[in-house]
């Protein structure tokens, strides 16, 4: 029974719970058991909150017994990326500098998830402060890919993606700054969506780059992702950048797409996202996916977005600039780690020693780059110029969306690589995000959906839409999903 429950989708579990066929407690326990069984090998979780999860599950069961109406995901377990603040539950952002910090408040999305009766199992591993593409930058050790334990699960949200692919949870929350939801989804054979910037509240999301960060759903199916999307999305007065517009109807779009008819949908293949530097197996899987879309009735056209070639350069100026400022608050004064405070050392030295000991190399690298890029005399050449490139990328998107309803590309240039393979070469790591960066810079929605295998490892299809057109992503993703066989990790990996 346990095993079956962990293999079920969120939609199935919600149905079983609502129908009284299983209790939320049984569902939670099944997933906690699975975590106990496999997480020593996956290391997807930093904290497992078994008591909290069972308590939340019991509350759902009690509400059901009392005849109360339950939300569409009530009782379904979820894994929360450990960069989202959770009241009373340690939140580390994958960094030693926050070790031991227990937040006194809930992020808006944490609150919405709890209010929806979703059962939070624990907090998942990530690259420190979400800086990375492999989860190897976590201060608490890497997460392993359920498809091959010697490989990375992507990053920064590798923990959330691995938890889903490894059947530890049917749902997870990720955060995407340059691809941290979509890239891990692609390399673990799961679904991950980055909503329109401002579509989901950032209040309580530990900031990496404020103008790019966006939380979103991770799941094994498009419909599950859509259901979670609708729980967390919507205007939040606590986030000034949150959009006061109706949430795009992503669940309806996913159900509509699942009927397998994309007749008349104009699909633009982005010329600049492919070719040299991409693994041939990835490109082959992508070509097959485009063919499938065509067979579903889509009109496929090629579009050109010339400034996408500069996305990586612009991103690695904007992100470090913002993060150098966002991470300044970790200074040993109010919370978190404090090193060297012997009552004699001056304040500045304690701050320096704490930041030296508390931040990992990638964080230090980006803080240094950002501090430099914002310096007097360099601002215009770096941060200012990068913002101009960002505008040009948005214009490329606008022009492309004149010709197409959605744009498609591979979600990543290559499949999951080996743990330790790229850590010594930041550039080799950064190019993981080549395909996902443009939508991040433009603030537009995008989803990654599994599209077959390359050498036995998952490949992701990225579907991008204009701002607030999240429903288009889901519709096309669900259409594609309905036409292909679901890929699952080899059973022997976690046997």
């Amino acid at each position, binding site marked *: 029974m346990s095993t079956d429950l962990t293999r079920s989708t969120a939609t199935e579990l919600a149905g079983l719970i609502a129908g009284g066929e299983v209790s939320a407690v049984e569902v939670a326990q099944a997933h906690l058991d699975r975590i106990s069984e496999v997480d020593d090998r996956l290391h997807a979780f930093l904290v497992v909150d078994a008591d909290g999860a069972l308590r939340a599950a019991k509350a759902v069961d009690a509400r059901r017994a009392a005849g109360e109406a339950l939300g569409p995901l009530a009782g379904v377990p979820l894994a929360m990326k450990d960069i*989202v*603040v959770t009241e009373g539950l340690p*939140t580390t*952002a994958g960094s030693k500098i*926050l070790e031991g*910090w227990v*937040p*006194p*408040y809930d*992020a808006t999305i944490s609150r919405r998830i709890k209010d929806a009766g979703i059962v939070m199992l624990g907090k998942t591993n990530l690259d420190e402060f979400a800086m990375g593409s492999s989860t190897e930058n976590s201060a608490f050790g890497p997460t392993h890919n359920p498809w091959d334990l010697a490989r990375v699960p992507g990053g920064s949200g590798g923990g959330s993606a691995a938890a889903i692919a490894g059947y530890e949870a049917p749902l997870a929350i990720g955060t995407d700054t340059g691809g941290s939801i979509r890239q891990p989804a692609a390399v673990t054979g799961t679904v991950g969506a980055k909503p329109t910037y401002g579509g989901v509240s*950032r*209040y*309580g*999301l*530990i*900031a990496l*780059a*404020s*103008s790019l960060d966006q939380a979103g759903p991770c799941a094994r199916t498009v419909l599950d992702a859509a259901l979670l999307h609708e729980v967390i999305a919507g205007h939040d*007065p*606590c*986030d*000034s*950048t949150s959009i006061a517009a109706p949430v795009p109807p992503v669940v309806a779009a996913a159900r509509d797409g699942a009927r397998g008819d994309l007749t008349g949908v104009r699909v633009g293949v982005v010329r600049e996202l492919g070719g040299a530097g991409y693994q041939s197996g990835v490109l082959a899987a992508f070509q097959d996916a485009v063919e499938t879309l065509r067979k579903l009735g889509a009109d496929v056209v090629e579009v050109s977005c010339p400034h996408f070639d500069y996305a990586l350069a612009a991103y690695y100026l904007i992100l470090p*600039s*913002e993060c*150098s*400022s966002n991470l*300044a*608050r970790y*200074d040993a*004064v*109010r*919370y978190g780690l404090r090193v060297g405070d012997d*009552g004699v050392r001056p*304040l*500045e030295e304690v*701050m320096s020693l704490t930041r030296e000991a508390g931040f990992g190399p990638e964080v230090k690298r980006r803080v240094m780059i950002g*501090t430099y890029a*914002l*310096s*007097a005399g360099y*601002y215009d050449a770096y*941060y200012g110029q990068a913002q101009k490139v960002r505008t040009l990328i948005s214009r490329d998107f606008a022009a492309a969306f004149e010709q197409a309803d959605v744009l498609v590309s591979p979600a990543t240039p290559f499949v999951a690589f080996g743990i330790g393979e790229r850590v010594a070469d930041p550039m080799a790591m950064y190019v993981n995000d080549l395909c996902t960066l443009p939508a991040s810079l433009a603030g537009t929605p995008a989803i990654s959906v599994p599209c077959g295998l390359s050498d036995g490892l998952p490949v992701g299809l990225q579907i991008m839409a204009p701002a607030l057109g999240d429903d288009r992503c889901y519709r096309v993703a669900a259409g594609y999903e309905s036409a292909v066989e679901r890929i699952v990790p080899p059973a022997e990996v976690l046997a």
Partner: protein
Amino acid sequence: MTYEDVLTRYAPVIGLETHVELGTVSKMFCGCSTAFGAEPNTQVCPVCLGLPGSLPVANEKAIESTIRIGLALNCTIAEWCRFARKNYFYPDMPKNYQISQYDEPLCVNGYLDVEVNGESYRVGIERVHLEEDTGKNTHVGRSGRIHGADYSLVDYNRAGIPLVEIVTKPVTGTGALAPEVARTYVTELRDILRTLDVSDVRMEQGSLRCDVNTSLHPLGTTEWGTRTETKNVNSLRSVERAVRSEMLRQAEILDGGGKITQETRHFIETTGDTRSGRSKEEATDYRYFPEPDLVPLAPDPAWVVQLRATLPELPAVRRARTRETLGISAEDMRQMANAGVVDLVGATVEAGAPVGEARNWWLGYLAQKANERETDAADLRITPAQVARIVSLVGDGTLSVALGRQVVDAVLDTGADVDAVVAERGLQVVSDTDVLAKAADEAIAANPDVAEKVRGGKVNAVGPLIGAVRKATGGQADAATVRAILLEKLGSQ
């Protein structure tokens, strides 16, 4: 070197940066209370503590107040502007950056006309922008400063209180009156802010803070000298003293062939001098960039029009009206303006006092008290209504002028009601003739020699007897009345 010496050789250029804590109910970017004086760290939340994940949301009322200040200072209101982050590490700043405005302030390019000794000076306003206040550090230890402190305490109640910064353009051509122009500007600005009801503008509580920039250049030259920025200027009087002392200090250095260091200096209230703070040369690079957590600020032009239309009558206009309706002479007006009592006189008259009496009290005894207490007349703990009541009691003979002054002293010390002071302390003039007659008899009996002289026709010798009667009645007898009674008794009338 005297101040006059400075002016024979140098011309000053001054500039003022004023920070005003707005009197909004809640903080700039969160819902915490702004009330002054609460227990440390009781008016805080994840946002103003800068906890991980928290986000700011701008206070609309603070934006409205800033626009109204800009309009009152004849500024152009930006149709679109942004907040910016000012990055530097300091423990009173929870995020280690301050949300401020940089190259896109909300209000720009205004002016404020101020009058000193009958001359009008136009002080250009460079910008008015909105930012958040920091927390407050208390350094515990021998020095009371961060260096040498045993430990430091931080109170974040103040962190995030909306703060408006008003920056003047350089003010030239004031010559010897530079200190007075600076003081009058801040006074006028404070009156405007009070009239707009956007802040309680209490310099001693730090809700109005002033930095004074001063430089000197040799007379006859056009290139300005190196400026210093004096902080910790916590009263109107200090504004004037700070400019004066900085002019003297700089002139001495320049006379000696030295160079002025561009630096921040701190005003020392007790001595009236300034001392060196951190040097601008080693100043932090603030790495300003647009605040990505906040959407740009684009005030609706219709709203700005409405705010302009609903501005209250500003102090300069009010003063002109006061002068006209009260029929005050130009010379009186100048004196009253210099003493900062125009509005006070006007309000005292409105409360029922005759113009002359109101003027005399405010320019005389009350101005003297303000001077003794090193404060401004407006900050004295007495209201125009209370002054009017005292005027009325003196007018009807209940109080003598001397007793009126005693009542003023009591009100200033205790803040109590005038009539309550009079009643409690028994300060009415003793006009009961039986009481006075009895006291006179006693005085005559106790001073037979003096009495004899007066009886002998030396009327002017009566002084000691008057003194004795007044002493016996607690100083509350009117001298003229006592004199008449004594002379009658001694048959010398």
